């Protein structure tokens, strides 16, 4: 299973779409690794720098509503995976993006808008993800801890290492 948690980056906007996560012009690549430098290249967010060290070090993304809307391109998940970001925490996800995350054995975790507001205000440097106990905890301030719920099937996908392995075993 992948390791989850670590340094956070905060994308404080609703409706961040797949074109912003990885522009279509890079969909001509036939390897996941080739996508690595282009992460969030076209993100429209005040003050955001796709070349920042903060993004390079990030292991967890915290964002708001409807993250990953738009295209079905799984490249939007792979570009995170090859940059070692395996967790996105949002108040809601677009369906295809969320499914693609779990299909790759990665975590798309939903918290309430109030919890996301707290995270956006407190901006913890790192977050621990305890999958077994469904907890998100800040290492910096013990005061911040959130419980998430995970659909049983999504949990199985993560444990199996993704949908292909799960489907090959079960169907």
């Amino acid at each position, binding site marked *: 299973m992948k390791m989850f948690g670590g340094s956070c980056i905060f994308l404080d906007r609703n*409706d961040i*779409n797949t*074109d*912003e996560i990885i*522009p*279509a*012009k890079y*969909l*001509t*690549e*036939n390897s*996941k690794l080739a996508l690595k430098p282009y992460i969030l290249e*076209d993100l*429209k967010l005040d003050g955001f720098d796709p070349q920042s060290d903060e993004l390079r070090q990030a292991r967890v993304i915290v964002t708001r*509503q*409807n993250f990953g*809307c*738009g*295209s*079905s*391109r*799984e490249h939007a*998940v792979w570009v995170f995976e090859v940059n070692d970001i395996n967790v996105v925490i949002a108040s*809601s*996800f*677009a*369906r*295809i993006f969320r*499914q*693609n995350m779990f*299909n*790759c054995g990665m975590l798309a975790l939903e918290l309430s808008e109030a919890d996301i507001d707290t995270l956006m205000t407190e901006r913890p440097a790192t977050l621990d993800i305890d999958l077994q106990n469904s907890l998100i905890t800040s290492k910096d301030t013990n005061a911040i801890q959130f419980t998430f719920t995970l*659909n*049983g*099937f999504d*949990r*199985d996908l993560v444990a199996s290492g*993704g*949908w*292909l392995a799960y*489907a*090959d075993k*079960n*169907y």
Partner: protein
Amino acid sequence: MGKTITEKIFDSHHRDNPAGETVVLDIDVVMCHEITTPIAINDLLERGMDRVFDASKIKAVIDHVTPSKDSKTATQSKIIRDWAKRHKIKDFFDIDANGVCHALFPEKGFIRPGYTVIMGDSHTCTHGAFGAFAAGVGTTDLEVGILKGVCSFRKPATIKITISGTLQTGVYAKDVILHIIKTLTVKGATDKIIEFVGPVVDAMSMESRMTLCNMAIEAGGTCGVCMPDRVTAEYLWPHIQSDYATIDQAVEEFRKWHSDANAAYAQTIDFDVSDLSPQVTYGYKPDEVKNISDMSDTIVDQVYIGSCTNGRIEDLREAAKILKGKTIDPNVRGIMSPATPLVYSQAMKEGIIETFMSAGFCVTNPTCGACLGMSNGVLAEGEVCASTTNRNFNGRMGKGGMVHLMSPLSAAAAAVTGRITDPRKLL
């Protein structure tokens, strides 16, 4: 309690109920194109799993960048072409016969009411116009679909949208769906099906119903769906006449795929479209929609008429009504892409290609190219495009470009005047 069409389709395709609200469905049609499929093919090869569950249920096309523009896109095409050959996928469409997937596959008769359809393309929801459950998926879902013929979904709830009234002259299915997305917002239908019913939908052609369903994903919807009826049966007749004695019989059998009157809905919305005027997007989200008359100062650099939303013959006919006998503004680049070879040849026969070219449009081969900035028709920084496509995201048709979504009629009007214009003024 009755059932919605989607619940009936889910019941009839049920394979497994692995956990909670998730169901695994058997898939009738797995569609593939050369952008999201080659990585699935390569991954299956690397894992020693280079198999397909049923070659007759897989349909494939090269449509996003065709002809190939460089070595990378040529490689993508080669991977899917070689794979189709290796697995004897009969319904594979290459450069001699290719067109935009969501226009080409229905035209070939690959969709039936009650079918389950997946494709590695978000606008797969278009095929719901035939009374099918059709959903866009990522490459891993596609890979499993190719290998096993199954896909997982959470049990979806349905939003029922009843469209009544009479559409004014110059107002089109595209205006209706833009107005609906404005109302629902870009996330209003996430994890839900949008069921389009009512007298306006009943009176629509299959082309217009496909335009409605095509943009369900822009409100977050898993699929848009219309009830299969006589219009559906007539569209499919060349492909189904060996299955039914008469069109009436097909219409009667299709009724089993109608939602029951007492089905449960997550939400019901009624729209009377009698007062609806032509619509246009103004920002970077497809729910940022205004009446077109409120945007009439906007100068455009390019007009694009085509795509899986509005590149069908009906769309070109509507645009040609405006362009006939006129020339487009000298500051505008007009680009038109018929969605399929059949649309192209039909447009030639009807003199529509001549009308577009005489007006000053460049007519390209059928391709998705410009819509997502992958091939011909990309915008430069700061340029503005009046477009019949379905997405206006920042950078969508090229970094720094601005895309205003509108109907084919409105796009033709913008081409003639050089600015966003209410097309009714030119009719």
